[in-house]
């Protein structure tokens, strides 16, 4: 079991091509923790913006009458991948992990697999 900070640091160090990670509360849009990002990439802005993404998808699913849940969301930019993974563990309701990957260096399948593992071990 890992706490927020360790989990985020793990994500950044073990996942190839990762440049930033955040744990976000999508009921408020605020980040519980952020790692990386660097200058010019404000992870708090990303947290608020991607909260809107997650909320929009959840609302759409509700309108479609889909009785299902989101496992992850992938956003592909020309130079980056943004990966959103909703937490399913007890106590993790209303939270998602957000991962920024450099698409030139990252292996998407591997990154998803590793993020899933980090999510499973994360205790909030």
């Amino acid at each position, binding site marked *: 079991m890992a706490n927020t900070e360790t989990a985020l640091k793990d994500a950044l160090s073990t996942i190839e091509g990762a440049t930033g990670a955040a744990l976000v509360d999508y009921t*408020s*849009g605020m980040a519980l923790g952020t790692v990386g990002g660097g200058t010019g990439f404000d992870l*708090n802005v990303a947290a*608020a913006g991607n*909260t809107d993404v997650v909320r929009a998808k959840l609302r759409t699913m509700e309108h479609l009458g889909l009785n299902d849940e989101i496992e992850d969301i992938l956003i592909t930019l020309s130079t980056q991948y943004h990966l959103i993974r909703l937490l399913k563990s007890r106590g993790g309701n209303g939270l998602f992990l957000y991962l920024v990957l450099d698409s030139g260096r990252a292996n998407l399948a591997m990154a998803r697999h590793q993020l899933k593992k980090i999510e499973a071990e994360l205790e909030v």
Partner: protein
Amino acid sequence: MSAEAEILDELHRLRSRMPQLTGALAASADGLVLAQDSRGVEPEGVAALTAAALGIALRLTDATGQGGFRELLVRSDRGYVATYAAGPSAVLTLLAEGRVNVGRLHLEGRRSSSRISELLQATGRATAQQPDRPRGQPSALTDAPPLPIRPTSPRAGGSRSRSRHRGTGETPTT
């Protein structure tokens, strides 16, 4: 265009960017409405209450030695009231629904309050010709009831509060 009209424009833009806002108003720190875009609440009352809350918030930041006031968030059963400092003499107060994205509310509120501060400073400069009122005084942030203790330890991040000392006669000795 006058500063009030430009501030009102800014409030309209803010509300169109964030549909979950139920009201937005800019007030001087002494509780007078500068511009407002809010239905269902009485802006004068909210502005006056904001000034009162601001007084307490200023004393709190001062008493705890954490530098200048930045923002105030109140959460209630069905929504939020957020107040952001817009320069030394004005505040921006936003009312939002309970399901608002607070992270985004902060981002937009901060951006907007600094824009309002710039607008006020621009007009402050225009009226700054009077020799004894160089900074568009009076400002209630500086004329607020005297605070019991001024933090004496010279904290590095005190640049915001330093500007507020000007014109009050309470110039810090350090």
